[in-house]
């Protein structure tokens, strides 16, 4: 890879100054960024290491739980407060990557990780995300892992994160900071669809950084489940995944949260299906109907047509597990 400068930041201000210059990238755990550099997808002049900033904390707030951007994926997944209040998040994290990677990966880095689309990774192939205007290699190519929701004519990639699917379901908020101060972005609006700008994964501005995530308290802890369907039992990205969280009263669904991974350019929250389930009774039939609603508008490509069957089956299974029907 190209030679680069390395700077260890000791203040937030220092990071913001560094990233205001073009060619500078933040490095946290480095598990995604360094891969990109090795594959020649990016060649930054300078890396600013943020891992020495005091942003590792997992702390209770008045309304919920705050995760510092540098909290490690492994630490979050084992944290007592997380396990007690948001077990869905712990399950999603543990379904991701491998223990070695989770020991390095951070909350912010996980949110900012880029698609695993193989054409994106191969600089000899066309890819609108890597090099706008070159075409989409996956569209007519090997698109088994690709999107069934929200894709565009430019890009059909999926966001690969498990953690983000849980955070989208849990109504989390992302806290970012830039020169002009802090912004709060609802988690479901942090990542974006490809539209005409597949090179952009999310709404974080170039000169902003993530400092943490807030998760509001809820009543989902007893009835939540993260289901990940993959080609092997560990260490593989999701074919599809489902984060299901239910607030039950007797046999009735008071509130439902449902999000999917492996199906869209962003964690795919299923608002319509959630609304449908609220007030309904906990039955397999309810879940099947919700799954049907969820799949409205889904579109498959040559190699991922199986997701049209696997996605609803996964929704039903996740809801059964969450509700105790299974």
């Amino acid at each position: 890879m190209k030679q680069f400068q390395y700077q260890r930041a000791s203040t937030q201000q220092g990071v913001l100054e560094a990233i205001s210059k073009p060619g500078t990238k933040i490095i946290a755990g480095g598990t995604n960024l360094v891969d990109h550099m090795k594959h020649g997808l990016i060649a930054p002049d300078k890396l600013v290491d943020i891992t020495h900033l005091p942003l590792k904390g997992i702390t209770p707030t008045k309304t919920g739980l705050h995760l510092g951007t540098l909290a490690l994926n492994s630490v979050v997944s084992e944290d007592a407060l997380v396990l007690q209040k948001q077990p869905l998040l712990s399950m999603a994290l543990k379904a991701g990557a491998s223990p070695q990677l989770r020991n390095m990966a951070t909350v912010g880095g996980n949110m900012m990780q880029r698609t695993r689309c193989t054409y994106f990774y191969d600089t000899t192939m066309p890819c609108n995300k890597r090099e706008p205007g070159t075409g989409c290699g996956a569209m007519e190519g090997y698109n088994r892992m690709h999107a069934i929701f929200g894709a565009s004519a430019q890009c059909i990639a999926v966001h690969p994160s498990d953690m983000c699917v849980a955070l989208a379901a849990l109504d989390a908020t992302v806290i970012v900071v830039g020169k002009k101060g802090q912004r709060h972005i609802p988690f479901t609006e942090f990542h974006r669809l490809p539209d005409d700008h597949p090179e952009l994964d999310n709404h974080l501005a170039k000169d902003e950084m993530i400092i943490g995530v807030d998760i509001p308290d809820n009543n989902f802890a007893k009835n939540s489940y993260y289901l990940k369907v993959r080609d092997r039992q560990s260490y593989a990205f999701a074919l599809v995944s489902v984060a299901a969280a239910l607030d039950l009263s007797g046999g009735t669904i008071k509130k439902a949260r449902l999000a999917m991974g492996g199906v869209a350019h962003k964690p795919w929250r299923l608002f319509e299906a959630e609304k449908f389930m609220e007030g309904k009774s906990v039955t397999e039939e309810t879940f099947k109907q919700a799954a049907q609603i969820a799949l409205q508008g889904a579109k498959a490509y040559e190699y991922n047509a199986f997701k049209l069957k696997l996605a609803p089956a996964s929704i039903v299974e996740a809801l059964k597990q969450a509700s105790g029907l299974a």
Partner: protein
Amino acid sequence: MTNDHPTSGITRVDGRLKVTGAIRYAAEYPFPGLVYGALVSSTIAKGTITGINSKAAENLPGVVAVISHLNAPKVPGYQGKGDEDGPVLKTFNDNKIYFNGQPVVLVIANTFERAKYAASQIKITYQQEKHQTNIEAGLRDTIKPWGDGSDYVRGQANAYQTAPVKIEAEYRTPIHVHNAMEPFAMTALWNGDKVTVYTKSQYIKGMQREIMSMFNLPEENVTVNSKVIGGAFGSGSPLWPYAKAALIGAKMIGKPLKVVIDRGQMFTMVGYRSPAIQKLGMGATADGKLVGITHLATGETATYEQFAEGITSTTNILYDCPNVNTQYRITKLDLSVPTYTRGPGETTGVFALESAMDELAHALNMDPLELRKKNYSERDQEENLPWSSKYLNECYEMGAAHFGWEKRNQKPGSVTKDGWLVGYGVSNGVYGAGRAPCVAKARLSADGILLIQSSTSDMGPGTATVMVKIASGIINIPVENIKFELGNSSLPAAPGEYGSMTTSSVGSAVYDVCTALNEQFNQLDGKSGTAHPDYTRILKEHNLPYVEVTHKSQGSPDAQKFSTHAYCVHFVEVNVHPTLGTVKVTRVVAALDGGKILNPITARSQVIGGAVWGIGMALMEGGVLDHRYGKYVNNSLGDYHVASNADVPQIEVLFVDKADPVTNPMGSKGIGEVTIVGFAAAVANAVFNATGKRVRDLPITPDKLV
């Protein structure tokens, strides 16, 4: 003897060195002034190079040289070589491109990182030609790899069609990439017209010969070192293009040069298992006696070199059947050449054969194990020879009892547990137990140390360990005083470590040389036939520093009168999720006839390794090409899935452990390959038993069952 936890025997003699990192792998030899090479791969599948712009790369700091066909010296061994001379990809000889990912430029720099970066700055232009990399398209245009030997008929061809109960099916297996942990590497050091290399090689003497012929050198001018190998599985025998590049590069610049290939390059530069499309027809009488088997297979090869393997050969011999016809074809594609991959040929063919047996058993409504027993072959019907030993029935009995096969429900899809469908499957593995001539030297010194040497290698099975074990049975000294040295071409000649014959070949040489050593001591002592001479006393009395014997061993001509094979029966339990299509292998019992088991603890590891790769083959492995570019789209360990720990259950290993009277003096039969042969069929058969769905194209991923 049966032992489900066979942990007896000696542990690996190099185990401590390996786990402490003290042992040196191919890429870990330091030399003063060492420089590093990085290979640039072609980005088209077929055509010619029209230009190479290396200016930017050459101007980068630390870059020593950029080598390609434009400036490489003529290699003597490249002149007039044809297919029969082995790998014929003449690296840096001309501008022809035969496959996407072909090494075309070598960039040398004073650090690895600089070489890599400079390599990324090379710009190559091509004249592209239309390519074909799809075996499905290649089906129309095939060749007979072995001429008439590609076809076999016994009795009536296609007789299965006349049988009262018959099945016909087509099976597909994908490319399998060996993906050994250790990437390939070679460090080459020239000294005038002498060259020494450090690399990983399954066939040290073979590689020495290839280098000799490449540069027209006498044997004493070429030294090949391969002390330890981090896995090879068949990929480590030829002198691959990266190695040719290292040899050419080091000679050109006159410095020690190390070339290491990266994971992506492991997909196109060091072979792979050919994909295959196979048609099976099988027929039986209503009570399950086989009437006929027809097995037609097509594999692939490169356009520049031919590779063929015995995909249909097991079908000719596994079952007692009057009518068998098999046919093997290959199609030339614009891909790198395939090579031997654990259980080459058999692994592919037996997946189809043993799946078909299961399909036939289902059609007959018969227990698939009963069907196999009913058609037990008592002799090799292809060669018309008796078996030297065959304890397959013992494997069936032992394995079935241990596994609890009698609990299998014949009706597919009828057993569930905790919401998962449960299925049982069984399959045979068979592999020829060969032996090749081998020389070993033994020296017993006054300090009581026995040193045995042979130029074999150890790609992981524990070669040195079993050799020490064999020697310890003959030379009566403490095991820790026995040393076995391998991994250097100047040691006595050994065959390649492949074909499951190392223990048989090298082990026989060790056995014989130790026996000869005992005789020498007895002679000195004026005795004959003493099993345990008093070595140090005898040396002292004769005032000798040591006694040394060199011995060449080869099988007796009698071996020709028998057909010799190792057998492995896999019993597998799977859980299949009824709506998600995910498959978990939950139990494995492998029952093995490998003759006399010489060192159970390492033998067991072989069986576990075969089962683990078998799980990978059944459920997840497959190289995927985008045929538009003729290029892999999953050439990393993140995308090409091998079994993870979570995918592997407890694997129980049972040995019949009865000596084969013919193969070698130890009575062993090679077990390296047989343990993967058939395994994937056992899984596919179990999936069918669980779900009623027959998956005929591997791997069995959730999308095929959902």
